């Protein structure tokens, strides 16, 4: 059993216990004393076992604390990374070149060893996540400062190296934070590389949002490769890839002149406005069909965002502001009514 499966089992036991209490209080079901003791002992043993083996949260309080620990671990990693950056900047001028190089190379190696050491000591991986992010920061510092020391012409290949390193750690330890960091670096690399195919210099990749559409589509397709060890990773790939596509479309739907397409800016904007609604609608449908809640929520969010930016274009300048916001409110109520109907229809089909 994987950690996620163990956590789901613990959650199911908690839900079952609460529901049983409720049923007993309402007089619908009543277990005999012996059955109750037997069931309670079985659940307690099972929970203790999976808590020992996988370090999962077996109570609501533990779950809340886990979230807190995740946030603290992330903030801690950010703070330590910033400290490393500023510490090196403050003192590197006092070191000779080869000492600088040795420190820059040793830092990510040592941080990786520390992450490995932490992973052997804990099952919850909070410290491993923190130290892995520090290792990635050290590697970013390593390459960027080497570039400065030796006046090297910058290249997008650094993003590939950082992305690969982050993904190795993410898949090695099952760290979602590192996966997101790795995907961000790879997104930079892919977008820059796609940009160079059109003949522009890689640093201009941000000036053509279409580069991110191509990179996002590639990332959203990664889950086609089976992820048996980490079943939560495909969802992150899909949402991250789609997020890049949606943001790029949102930008192009409003600033058509930064597109590759050889049409007038207005026509490009109309094209991306239409594409935005179609893709967001498709994402909602696909998400519901495949039960990908992240994709559904992302599709809904961007559908509403595209709609609101369009309404802003049409009405903001000529309509009194109170009327504009009132209409937005009415539209939200209309959308709620439609969604409520869909929900009720789904329930009727199920019953």
């Amino acid at each position, binding site marked *: 059993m994987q950690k996620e499966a163990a956590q789901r089992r613990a959650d199911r036991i908690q839900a079952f216990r609460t529901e049983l209490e409720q049923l007993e209080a309402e007089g619908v079901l009543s277990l005999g004393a012996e059955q109750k003791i037997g069931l309670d002992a079985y659940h307690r043993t099972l929970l203790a076992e999976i808590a020992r083996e996988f370090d999962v949260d077996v109570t609501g309080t533990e779950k809340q604390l886990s979230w807190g620990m995740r946030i603290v671990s992330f903030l801690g990693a950010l703070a330590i990374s910033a400290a490393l950056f500023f510490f090196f900047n403050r003192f590197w001028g006092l070191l000779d070149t080869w000492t600088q190089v040795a420190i820059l190379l040793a830092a*990510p190696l040592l941080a990786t060893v520390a992450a490995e050491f932490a992973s052997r000591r804990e099952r919850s991986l909070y410290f491993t996540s923190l130290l892995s992010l520090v290792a990635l920061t050290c590697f970013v510092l390593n390459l960027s400062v080497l570039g400065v020391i030796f006046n090297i012409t910058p290249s997008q290949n650094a993003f590939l190296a950082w992305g690969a390193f982050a993904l190795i750690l993410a898949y*090695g330890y099952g760290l979602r934070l590192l996966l997101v960091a790795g995907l961000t670096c790879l997104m930079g690399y892919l977008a820059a590389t796609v940009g160079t195919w059109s003949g522009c210099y890689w640093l201009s990749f941000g000036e053509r949002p279409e580069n991110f559409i191509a990179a996002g589509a590639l990332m959203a397709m990664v889950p086609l490769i089976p992820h048996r060890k980490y079943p939560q990773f495909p969802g992150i790939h899909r949402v991250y890839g789609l997020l890049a596509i949606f943001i790029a479309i949102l930008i192009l739907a409003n600033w058509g002149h930064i597109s590759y397409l050889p049409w007038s800016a207005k026509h490009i904007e109309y094209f991306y406005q239409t594409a935005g609604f179609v893709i967001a609608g498709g994402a909602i449908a696909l998400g519901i069909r495949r039960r990908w809640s992240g994709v559904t929520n992302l599709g809904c969010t961007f559908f509403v965002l595209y709609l609101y930016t369009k309404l802003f274009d049409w009405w903001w300048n000529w309509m009194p502001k109170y009327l504009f916001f009132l209409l937005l409110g009415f539209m939200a109520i209309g959308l709620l009514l439609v969604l409520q109907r869909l929900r009720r229809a789904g329930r009727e089909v199920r019953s």
Partner: protein
Amino acid sequence: MKRIHLWLAFALLIVVNTVILAGIARNRAGSPDAELTLTERELVLQTGNFREENSGLALLLDWKNDFVAEWFDTDKLAELGFDVTPWKGDEAESDYRGWRTLPKKAFIVLEYEGKAWERFQRKKDEELASLREPPPRNEAEEKHAESERARIENELLAGSRLFAVDVGLDPRNLRALYPDGDRYIILPALVRIYPQREKTEWNLRGNFETVLGGSLHIPRDLAAPLMTLPNRGRLTRGYDYFEPGKVPAPRYRVTVRWGRRYEPWVVGVRLIGGE
């Protein structure tokens, strides 16, 4: 086998660093592509708001593009791969080509204290003469002439003597055209296309957006003389002189080499009394 990710991470770190260090060694191997001794006029001290947070020291390469518009024409742009079909200047075209042509990487040739610098001096001397003739008619004109005179004199005394003189895609071809490595530097740069309205016609011109590798790190063993220099009296880009009333003068000479990959490194720093 279980810890394969650990070995992969180590291998990646070592391979990437080895590739970078090998590239640096390759750049510096053999005789340099160019070697010049420049002064504070061409290499200004890089400063920032967070000096106390950064103990590293860097110099910024300063150069002029004064005569670029004369030679960076449609033919050169076509050579670099830009679309140079005639520019009509209507709104749709401006929308498409004006906004959407991205910069390209090319190689710039910078000339040090050469013909372009001599021409620049002659031009500035003429400008100084025109400020004297006819003489200012009132106090406002006198003040304007005075500030213009100071600006031009500062440029002649403290401005960069490096001028962009050519551009191309192949640095080896450029070196064959400009073989003197003591006078001509070849560097990677970003170039852009600009439509320029000349009378009733639109002409396409090229210009440089930036020079890549224009910031030079100073290693610790060479930084000591520069660390002793006060902030006052510093020459800055744009030649706004920090000590009004004093004649601006460069305070150091720096010997720089450019290697096989056209990446620079500093080999010597020396303080000077003035030029």
